């Protein structure tokens, strides 16, 4: 930041509400920190039920990230680089899961991929029943998380001057080779940022999972679902697991800010 930007003192009319906003966002998180059962935190987080949910959460969010990369990167490229009919519609479709209440996403997933859903019978013929299975939890997480990857990549692609790609093309590289050798390396910071956001969203996914995939320890009960059920009879345990998720999410953001988000900012 240039020193000139700091010279002016912020007017009180802006500083006060801004401070209020900071307090508003910080107080609940402080509450978790204060309320966390620090004494037996280790014991609570290594309980078999919690480690099982953690293992499942890592598995589900890992798969969701992988699927998002496989499907989302090509989609982001198409959205940014080509002009096909209905592009605006597709972009809306991509953004929709970000603004839909996750429970609505869960109902929609059931109507689409559930046993009685649009594709349910076809899927079942292949022996795939998604509801109440870990695969269903992966589908739910991917549905809500992939948009974060697609949108951040599409934005970054829009910011890359196409003449590098054109140069590669004039030297005889095909579109796929150009994507692999030229575009993706330039995109690396955005790709990492988008992937991290996508993964963090998948890790925190709750509503679509409990609605579509159900809640069974070891199969579909990820950490956020565990927190929800712990809250009903072991609030301290819920706080401990919340702290774990909070630390993971904060870790992702801190890494992002330091390494990647800064690179993306224009004018740096």
């Amino acid at each position: 930041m240039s020193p000139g930007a700091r010279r002016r003192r912020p007017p009180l009319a802006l500083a006060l509400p801004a401070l209020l906003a900071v307090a508003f966002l910080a107080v609940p998180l402080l509450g978790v920190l204060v309320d966390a059962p620090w004494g037996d935190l280790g014991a609570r987080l290594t309980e078999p039920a919690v480690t099982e949910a953690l293992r499942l959460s890592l598995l589900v969010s890992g798969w969701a990230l992988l699927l998002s990369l496989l499907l989302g990167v090509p989609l982001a490229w198409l959205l940014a680089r080509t002009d096909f009919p209905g592009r605006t519609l597709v972009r809306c479709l991509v953004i929709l899961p970000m603004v839909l209440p996750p429970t609505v996403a869960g109902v929609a997933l059931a109507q689409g991929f559930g046993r009685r859903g649009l594709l349910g019978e076809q899927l079942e013929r292949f022996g795939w029943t998604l509801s109440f299975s870990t695969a269903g939890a992966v589908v739910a997480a991917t549905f809500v998380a992939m948009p974060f990857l697609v949108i951040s990549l599409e934005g970054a692609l829009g910011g890359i001057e196409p003449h590098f790609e054109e140069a590669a093309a004039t030297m005889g590289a095909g579109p796929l080779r150009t994507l692999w050798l030229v575009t993706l390396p330039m995109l690396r910071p955005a790709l990492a940022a988008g992937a991290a956001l996508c993964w963090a969203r998948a890790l925190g996914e709750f509503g679509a999972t409990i609605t579509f995939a159900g809640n069974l320890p070891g199969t579909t009960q990820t950490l956020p679902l565990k927190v929800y059920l712990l809250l009903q009879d072991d609030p301290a345990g819920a706080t401990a697991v919340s702290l774990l998720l909070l630390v993971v999410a904060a870790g992702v953001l801190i890494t992002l800010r330091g390494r990647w988000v800064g690179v993306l900012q224009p004018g740096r």
Partner: protein
Amino acid sequence: MPRTRTPVPTHTPTRRARLLPALLVPAALVLAGCGADDGASGSDGGGGGSEVTLTVLAAASLTDVFEEAGAAYEEERPGTTVRFSFAGSQELVAQLNGGAPADVLVTADTDTMASAAELTGEPETIARNELTIVTPPDNPAGVEELADLGEPGLRLVLAAPEVPAGRYGQEVLRERGVEAEPVSLESSVRAVLGKVRLGEADAGLVYATDAAVAGDDVRTVPIPEEWNVLAAYPAAALNEAEHPDEAADFVSWLNGETARGLLADAGFLAP
């Protein structure tokens, strides 16, 4: 492949600029909706001097009958508005422990009510309920009796042991000696019903009253009395109630003739 690299960099910002307001519109609508709602409840009892809004936390299985009971109560007590919050019983107690302001608590079992004993007055049982098996109308897994719930491969959905319906369900299965392997333990009994209605589950254990609410959407397989449970619904005014008199009045009203009638119509058994 069409490689039109038209003015992407200049194009995107304008599109984005248009997108943001588009996203904000639904948010604004939602907020406006809330505002209108508040206004309506505020002006309701404007005529009388005392205008009271009772907040009642009630077990999920009471959802439909309490909506009706609330309307009936408001009619009998002009100036009073009853606001319900429905959830699994344990969750309601968790909300209370978290400091949620409310006047009355109604749970689906006496254990959960007892776990909130420090927060409530003397509870009164207002109704009873029993469990039943529900399946999708076409009964894909051919569930005909309680013992069938132990069939391997059956997609059985129960309520989580954290909520009363889940504990009752385990009790019933244990009574019958059924070793069931549920595919999901839902956070409330209504979520169990939802999974069966959607056809995702082959069978579920819910309250008889939930099955009645679902009507033709589900097929009911009754559980014989010898293995069934008789769930009690206790109601109590909360010590921290904002309107303690009205809260006590509502609890005793729930045991009165009007409420009894509504509860009976909904399939609840007398206390």
